[in-house]
């Protein structure tokens, strides 16, 4: 009798080799460090927002972001943004606010690289991390939706990726729709001074590669990437520093221009 495909799967991988595996204590240590760091960042964000409110400068958050430069898919590093000024909004929060989310129509398709323009602007800095706001705007006549997290990695001038991509967070199933409204998210780049130089192996990144809707489009990122130049470049780690936390992070994509 012919074997069933399920039987073939059931038999596979049943006898892992001894002598290696995951390390439970190391997992708890690393996970614990990330939890601690997240609590610190969340606390800093709360303080930052409170400071903004108390300082009466909350109006700045509502201003349209016109200080960056629109970046088209495939733009090279020569298209450097200008006029970037720091935002007073400070730290990102770890969770997207979804209360005001529009209800996606089933007819709206996933945004592709050619459907959007991205605009980079300064998002402030806190706790050894510099934040940039990336605003996603649909081209005229287009309405489309985006997944909860963008794929983001740092690159050299020639386009080589440096270090790991920013890890995607937990998707809430919330898919911001852009058309008449914009969406945005924050990219955090941790200062290389936070890491041992021998492990970090710092190099200069000149741009970010951003790809939207990686899961839903099911395409190779090389087809959907949008190169977003970093003004003056940013020093990042080329070594693997993941044991000490992610150097590159992204917040969930939310509706609105300020990434929060």
């Amino acid at each position, binding site marked *: 009798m012919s074997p069933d495909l399920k039987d073939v799967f059931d*038999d596979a991988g049943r006898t892992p080799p001894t002598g290696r595996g995951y390390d439970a204590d190391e997992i708890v240590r690393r996970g614990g460090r990330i939890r601690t760091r997240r609590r610190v960042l969340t606390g800093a964000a709360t303080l930052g927002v409170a400071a903004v409110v108390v300082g009466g400068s909350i109006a700045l958050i509502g201003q349209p972001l016109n200080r960056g430069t629109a970046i088209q898919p495939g733009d090279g590093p020569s298209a450097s943004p200008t006029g970037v000024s720091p935002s007073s909004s400070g730290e990102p929060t770890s969770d997207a606010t979804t209360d005001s989310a529009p209800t996606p129509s089933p007819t709206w398709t996933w945004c592709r690289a050619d459907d959007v323009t991205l605009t980079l602007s300064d998002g402030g800095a806190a706790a050894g991390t510099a934040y940039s706001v990336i605003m996603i705007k649909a081209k005229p006549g287009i309405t489309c939706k985006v997944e*909860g997290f963008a794929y983001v990695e740092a690159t050299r001038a020639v386009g080589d990726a440096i270090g790991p991509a920013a890890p995607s967070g*937990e998707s809430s199933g919330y898919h911001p729709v852009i058309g008449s409204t914009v969406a945005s998210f924050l990219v955090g780049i941790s200062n290389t001074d936070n890491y041992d130089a021998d492990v970090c192996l710092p190099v200069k990144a000149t741009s970010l590669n951003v790809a939207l809707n990686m899961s839903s489009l099911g395409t190779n990122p090389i087809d959907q990437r949008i190169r977003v130049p970093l003004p003056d470049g940013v020093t990042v780690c080329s070594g693997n520093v993941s044991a000490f936390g992610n150097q590159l992070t992204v917040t969930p994509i939310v509706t609105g221009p300020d990434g929060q």
Partner: protein
Amino acid sequence: MSTAVPRDAPTPDEAGFRSWMAVRGPVIRRKAYLMTGDWYAADDLAQDVLVTVYSRWTRVARGSNVDAYANRVLVGKYVDSARRPWRRETAVETPHDRADASATAAFDAVEAADSRLLQALGELTPEHRAVVVLRFTDDLSVDEIAHSLDIPAGTVKSRLSRALDALRTALGPGVTTPADLEDQP
């Protein structure tokens, strides 16, 4: 001089996570192996997934299906890593520990036993491979996979259907598809 500090008793959070990891960790490791086709890569992937799950354990354990969350993290990290080779630059500081000849032989022997299936799975895209691994290792339905991965059920059906077609071709007529999957579009 450094002094060893006795480790504190685990918090309830940590104890809960360790209990869950003791049961589900090996399953995640096996799924990682079927996705990556390599025990070394699988161990690294499983470790990354478990770190992520523990980093969000309080919220994950409180309100949602932990296994579904772990599957989402697993597939996300796997697909991400599988897509990474394009023009990648990686700094390698130390030789791979696979230089240990006896360990290499042990790993190769284990992988050889599964080689036919792994070779067939290797023909699939990462997204198709992930869906078919979840279907067969966790016995998840199309809807459950869709929920786990936060993608439409239609996408799961389509990926599963194509993956099964490709596996049937790769494994030959000697392997049959379970009857309940013949209804998949």
